[in-house]
């Protein structure tokens, strides 16, 4: 059943009529994702790639009560309200692709989602793919292949790079989750690793971290505390990044004396995680780790 996204996933696209929204609606449908409806205020009654558009999430959900997942392409200024709307309509998994949402808005919406028991992925994330089942995101799906390795990542293109390397090495993926590159995001490494650990269709886990914050250190602390039954390999981008400079992602910055790749690597290694020095080493380390456990 993989994690987060599976054959039962029924998708709502918020901001479906915009450039990004419509392009990716077509691409997701093409991959076989079951998209039941889209929402754009004042566009109710139209369609995008045959998907009916509604003015309000409540209307979409009323007409399509099977909807259980939303993907948000709404521009940053309106995205937080779109997420509240989805939460209030009872949708429990919301994937926010939108980038450039102000951090205080994200803090508020993540707090609200927690209050209402909804899971948030992102913002500023490529989404989630369960290869050959469904993609709720913007990733180039041809690089992914069905299999038993779970990927969780703070980066978009680097996820594709790693997924492709795994695919070519014969490691298909159960699910790949992009948690987003912002300083504050909904689900974190620990949340997703716990899901992979519990998922019978996942045999091994790949974590792609980067500089900034302490998400990797928290994962390391979690693993030290709880242990992990499945083999895990990590890669941390940004070893050569200078202090105090934002490396593209809003969250990728070494600041307040923490967040360097070295610290993260050290913490993970200390927790028994295999850490690759280059993305291309991931499949090799994974193979070794699996053999070791077997």
């Amino acid at each position: 059943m993989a994690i987060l996204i599976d054959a039962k996933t029924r998708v709502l696209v918020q901001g479906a009529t915009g450039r990004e929204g419509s392009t990716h609606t077509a691409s997701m449908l093409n991959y076989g994702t079951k998209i039941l409806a889209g929402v754009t205020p004042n566009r109710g009654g139209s369609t995008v790639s045959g998907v009916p558009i509604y003015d309000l999430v409540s209307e979409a959900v009323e007409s399509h009560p099977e909807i259980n997942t939303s993907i948000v392409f709404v521009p940053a200024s309106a995205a937080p309200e779109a997420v509240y709307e989805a939460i209030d309509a009872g949708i429990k998994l919301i994937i926010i692709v939108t980038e450039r949402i102000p951090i205080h808005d994200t803090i508020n919406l993540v707090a609200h989602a927690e209050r209402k028991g909804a899971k948030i992925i992102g913002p500023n994330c490529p989404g989630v793919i369960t290869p050959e089942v469904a993609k709720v995101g913007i990733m180039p799906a041809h690089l992914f292949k069905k299999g038993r390795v779970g990927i969780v990542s703070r980066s978009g293109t680097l996820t594709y790079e790693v997924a492709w390397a795994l695919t070519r090495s014969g490691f298909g993926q159960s699910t790949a989750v992009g948690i987003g590159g912002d300083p504050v995001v909904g689900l974190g490494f620990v949340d997703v690793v716990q899901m992979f650990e519990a998922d019978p269709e996942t045999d091994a886990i790949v974590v792609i971290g980067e500089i900034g914050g302490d998400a990797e250190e928290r994962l390391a602390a979690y693993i030290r505390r709880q242990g992990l039954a499945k083999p895990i390999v990590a890669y941390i981008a940004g070893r050569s990044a200078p202090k105090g400079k934002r490396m593209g992602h809003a969250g990728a910055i070494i600041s307040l004396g923490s967040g360097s790749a070295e610290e993260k690597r050290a913490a993970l290694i200390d927790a028994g995680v295999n850490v690759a020095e280059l993305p291309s080493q991931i499949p090799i380390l994974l193979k070794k780790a699996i053999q070791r456990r077997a």
Partner: protein
Amino acid sequence: MNLQEYEALRLFASAGAKVPKHILVKDVEGAAEAYKAIGGTVALKAQVAVAGRGKAGGIVKVSSEAEVRAQAEKLLKSEIKGLKVESLLVEEWINAEKELYLGFTIDRSAKKAVALACGVGGIDLEDLVKSKDFTLVREHIDPLKGLMRYQAYHLAKGIGLKGGAIIRFVDLSIKLYQLFKSLDCELLESNPLALCKDDLLIALDARIIVDDNALPRHSELAQSSLDLNPLEREARKEGFSYVDLEGDIGVIGNGAGLVMATLDTVTYYGGRPACFLDVGGGASSETVEKAVRLALRNQRVKVLLVNVLGGITRCDEVALGLVNALQANRTIPIVVRLVGVNEEAGRRLLREAGIGYYESMEEAAEAAVKALRGD
């Protein structure tokens, strides 16, 4: 965005915090005039938005016009941590009985804002966080109700304040938190915050970093970018994520994580990157062309490494952009890794233009390092 110090001081004052008298000046004459207006002892403060300015000689205490002239001239000719000093703040010198730290920032793991206070001021927050010598008191802020007075009170007691100083600290904290929130800050701090006689609290230094993503709703702020060098400023205008680095291999790619990994791979093979340049997702040939031209303006770049894994980005667009950019201006070696959507079309364009390409990032990075060595 790092606000300029004088702007941060102005915002502090408008929020109701006490700040020293201060005047922004651009030249020696202005500094002398400002000194006459303020008098007594003043601090000359280089206006560069980097941490550790004081330690790097960017703050000078002076007590006469002659001294002001001499020191202002010196400072205005200097560079601090690579940033040219273009202006100075002439600031009234305040005699503090004690220096404190008060700041607000985002705690990523708690997913909340956090208020931080310390009974010692004038030390980098970075060092405060790491040091075992000082107690840094923290209060997480519930986004749904904001900083409460009792939390500020707790901070005040935690850093050892007593009596009237507590009340003033609480009031100031509430005011500065409101500023932090209303300006969408990532960081707002006063360091040092002077505790003076009669329990007065005066913000000797004001530092504000506004969340770039929130700038569209803060048209009231002057767009300053003192923390960026000229090339970085230009890149931002063009919409690129660009960071100047100290090596000689320029790195361009699509996606922040991928570009970071490319830098790491270059470093792994013994090279030193000269820049980080992310063209973003779905770049057109024009965007790629601009990116290449921009990177080539970095004088340190001796080899250019382009790493594109096309997903949303189409390889043929990338190739076209590269070819166009390099047509007239191919003075240095270029190494390309190009895979993904429309890769065949893209590679054909490269071949026709005589540009080689690689299948893997590692091969390309290694090749770039070799090209630099002239191998």
